[in-house]
């Protein structure tokens, strides 16, 4: 018996079985049938048939998003030719867990495919994945765990929302475990507004929890700090989330979801060398950074500019962590703590580099 719904599945190079970080620049390509997590999807949802799998390198899509998306749309074109029977009815992407580049790719591809081919799309990410904010208004994103350990459960959420969308069932963010899309939709409450208003006011007055029915849009933005008037006199510090650490990673900063940052002296050091430093970051191909750590944290160039007088003085320490799948909450704490140290040391300006 043939499956009810033909779907397309979208995976990065790792989950498609092409390779790890060293294959992160792979251009998009198409495979017939399911790959890796696609098999799990079919197993969990026998009414879905993965017609094809689109695979792409994380970096390829993250770095050239427009081009990559164009290429993927072209690759998919034959599925949507006018005379084609059994056109796919849905694109499913991920789960991308807390991988930022993978998430961005899933979001961009879903958005573009929905617009071009007018099929339903759904993806899955950890709620703090940076791509969530970027794409939640355009695409249904079901909640995934932080990493691959939660594959089974994340895929189940993803597939069940997909099934509901395909069958036109009513869905709600809390019930169906997806990120609210910011779309306001009417419904009839069991109580009139006046009754709800007095109930809410009494709760608010008693200090009990209540849920507003319309949250004010929030923009957590920080006011830009003033410009540095004279860089030639300023004290500059270097900070990186690219994982550049002394060789051997003495603080054992984790390759992903780091729990700490390191403070390292660069007093009298004119440049990083492959012998002195390395990357501890597990989210990108480390070959280039290990060959020349200045490619991630440009100490050599900063020292030259210091010597030329473009910078007053470089702070004797730099601060490093790994931004790979690190939660926004931890990153915020690192930032606060680093900033306190910097202010104590009389630093005025900061260059923060990320991979």
């Amino acid at each position: 018996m043939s499956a009810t719904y033909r779907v397309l599945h979208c995976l990065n190079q790792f989950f498609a079985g092409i390779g790890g970080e060293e294959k992160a620049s792979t251009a998009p390509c198409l495979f017939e049938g399911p790959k890796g997590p696609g098999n799990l999807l079919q197993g969990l949802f026998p009414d879905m048939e993965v017609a094809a799998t689109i695979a792409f390198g994380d970096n390829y899509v993250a770095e050239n998003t427009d081009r990559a998306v164009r290429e993927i749309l072209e690759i998919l074109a034959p599925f949507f030719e006018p005379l084609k029977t059994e056109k796919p009815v849905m694109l499913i992407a991920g789960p991308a867990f807390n991988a930022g580049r993978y998430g961005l790719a899933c979001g961009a591809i879903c958005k573009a495919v929905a617009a071009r081919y007018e099929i339903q799309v759904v993806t899955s990410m950890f709620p703090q994945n940076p791509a969530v904010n970027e794409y939640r208004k355009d695409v249904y994103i079901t909640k995934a765990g932080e990493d691959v350990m939660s594959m089974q459960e994340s895929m189940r959420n993803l597939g069940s929302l997909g099934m509901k969308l395909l069958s036109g069932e009513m869905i709600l963010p809390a019930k169906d475990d997806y990120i609210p899309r910011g779309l306001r939709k009417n419904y009839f409450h069991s109580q009139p507004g006046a009754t709800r208003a007095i109930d809410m006011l009494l709760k608010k007055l008693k200090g009990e929890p209540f849920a507003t029915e319309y949250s004010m849009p929030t923009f957590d933005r920080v006011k830009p700090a003033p410009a540095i008037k004279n860089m030639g006199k300023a004290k500059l510090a270097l900070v990186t989330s690219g994982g550049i650490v002394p060789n051997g990673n003495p603080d054992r900063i984790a390759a992903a979801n780091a729990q700490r940052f390191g403070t390292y002296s660069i007093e009298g050091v004119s440049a990083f060398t492959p012998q002195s430093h390395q990357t501890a970051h597990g989210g990108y191909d480390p070959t280039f950074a290990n060959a020349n750590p200045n490619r991630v944290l440009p100490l050599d160039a900063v020292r030259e500019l210091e010597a030329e007088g473009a910078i007053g003085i470089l702070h004797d320490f730099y601060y490093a962590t790994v931004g790979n799948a690190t939660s926004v909450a931890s990153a915020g704490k690192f930032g606060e703590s680093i900033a306190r140290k910097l202010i104590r040391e009389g630093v005025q300006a900061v260059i923060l580099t990320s991979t």
Partner: protein
Amino acid sequence: MVKEIERTGLTVVHCCSIIPISKTVGANRIVPTIAIPYPFGDPDLGPEEEKKLRKDLVKKALKALATSVEQQTIF
């Protein structure tokens, strides 16, 4: 991280290759860099050229620090 640093009043520039993420995390001064595995480099270039590229990017970052901005700005 960048937002929390700036919140204390320090002037900070975020150098990264994936601009949308930088915008989402709330950086105000953003300098786009080359690529994820080598933001300040390019293995295809000779050592001299690559060094020059890196220095230019740092100069751009210094310029961003010295420029007054009212909102998120990509340099």
